[in-house]
């Protein structure tokens, strides 16, 4: 089976600046894949190259087996992109916007199309705005219309470029619930985000980009196991007994951090602390997190 997205040796230069320095990655059909990296790492350049908006200097990009240059019609039909910026055409209503978008992809006006548009609007809580002009919508609503525009031609691959930037918590949760549902129905999702906890919760595999290169690519769990640890944090009423200082990973105020590999170690550490004379007033167990992985990889 062809990968949903296949990127091989892609290079893109803008004058002296190298935005993509030989990136290769592959996303399987049905995967929920995250593309992470700091600003300027090349995430958006890679997405725009997939969309045919940027022409690369070397390498190839394929969507569902179709080359984005030589077979651009098939590649673009297979791809739905939700852009980072909120953009809209101020002349038209939400329904007109979606009908036009479907038409551009070769889907003629029909009862079936209108039913699909109604379904999309209902799922995105936009039914009552269907006939409103785009100018009358709030920022959150416009962002949901962008998502509907990306989906209206039923693409198997959906690319979300920072879809929740500046979005309130309620809308963010609604968007993720909708996107999870799409993924569960077989759509491949490629996500870029600065909210690392979102990527950790949603994505099965992650690629991290730095200065136009892939610096890590693995399943989310493998990355967490390799670069992050579970931590026991304890707050003491007094100083940490000297016998325990060597075992401590770090200290932040009254909180002392101890790395643990499984939950069984929690009781061992607590017993060691009590035996050393420490008086514990509070404790927490912090799970491995992607933020730590990200920081380690970006500073490596």
């Amino acid at each position: 089976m062809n990968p949903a997205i296949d990127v091989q040796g892609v290079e893109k230069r803008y004058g002296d600046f190298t935005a993509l320095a030989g990136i290769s990655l592959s996303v399987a059909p049905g995967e929920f894949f995250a593309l992470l990296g700091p600003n300027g790492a090349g995430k958006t350049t890679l997405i725009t190259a997939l969309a045919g908006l940027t022409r690369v200097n070397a390498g190839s990009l394929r969507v569902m087996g179709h080359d984005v240059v030589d077979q651009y019609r098939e590649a673009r039909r297979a791809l739905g992109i939700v852009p980072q910026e909120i953009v809209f055409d101020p002349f038209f209503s939400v329904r007109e916007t979606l009908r036009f978008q479907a038409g551009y992809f070769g889907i003629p006006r029909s009862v079936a199309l209108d039913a699909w548009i109604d379904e999309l609007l209902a799922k995105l809580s936009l039914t009552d705005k269907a006939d409103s002009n785009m100018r009358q919508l709030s920022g959150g609503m416009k962002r949901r219309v962008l998502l509907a525009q990306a989906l209206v031609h039923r693409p198997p691959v959906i690319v979300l470029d920072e879809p929740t930037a500046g979005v309130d918590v309620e809308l963010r949760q609604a968007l993720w619930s909708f996107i999870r549902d799409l993924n569960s129905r077989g759509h491949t999702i490629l996500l870029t985000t600065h909210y690392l906890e979102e990527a950790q919760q949603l994505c099965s595999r992650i690629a991290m980009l730095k200065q136009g290169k892939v610096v890590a690519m693995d399943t989310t769990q493998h990355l967490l196991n390799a670069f992050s640890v579970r931590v026991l944090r304890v707050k003491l009423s007094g100083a940490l007994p000297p016998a325990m200082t060597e075992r401590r990973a770090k200290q932040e105020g009254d909180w002392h951090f101890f790395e643990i590999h499984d939950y069984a170690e929690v009781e061992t550490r607590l017993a060691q602390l009590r035996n050393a004379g420490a008086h514990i007033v509070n404790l927490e167990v912090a799970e491995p997190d992607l933020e730590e992985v990200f920081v380690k990889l970006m500073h490596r």
Partner: protein
Amino acid sequence: MAMTGFQTLLRKEILRFWKVAFQTIAAPVLTAMLYMMIFSHVMSGSNAAFPGVTYEQFLIPGLAMMSMLQNAFANTSSSLIQSKITGSILFILLPPLSHWDYYGAYLIAAVARAMAVGFGVFLVGIFVAHIPVYSVTVIIAFALLGSGLLAAMGVIAGLWADKFDQLAAFQNFIIMPLTFLSGVFYSIHSLPPFWQSLSHFNPFFYMIDGFRYGFFGKADVSLALSLSVTAGSFLCLSAVTLYLLKSGYKLRQ
């Protein structure tokens, strides 16, 4: 050509100007009407270019053509620059549309707007003077070719400009002088020899002269020359426009 994609883009481009028809059709007709009133009043009784043709009769086809040319240019250029600046151009760059789809849709929509404006000016003109019609075919041919030529120029300007003021410069320093110096308000035979010769290098002159021939059966230069220059210019600019669209000039990095 992807028919549904092309048809959708064409429909969208037509709706875009039709939804603001007061501004895109009624306003230019009103402007032309004001020109008509002022110039026909000021120049009333002066000799027109051709025997048996009054100044008012001479002026109206020229004004109609000038309005068509300006609006064909305005339609494509404003659509492109607006969508580039607002970012909504993305919606037509992501789908599987070809450069032929883009050009065809922008061209036909601009010509449709030009025709609507030209027809409006003609209707108003009927109340000002009796306008003879010598050849409907010639009138339509020059209206289509002239509007198409300016639509192509509008696409080029819309692609090239990054800001509204760049587009305004294109319009004010290229389109306006070429239209005003093309013989809309006068026959080039009334000009001094130098300006008369210079007018022959202005393709707009041939569009207006050929268009006027369709009404009076008379023109400053031969119909064949006007048709050749207009059609040749249209084909050349179309080729340039298609090349720019295919190369993704200022659209795809």
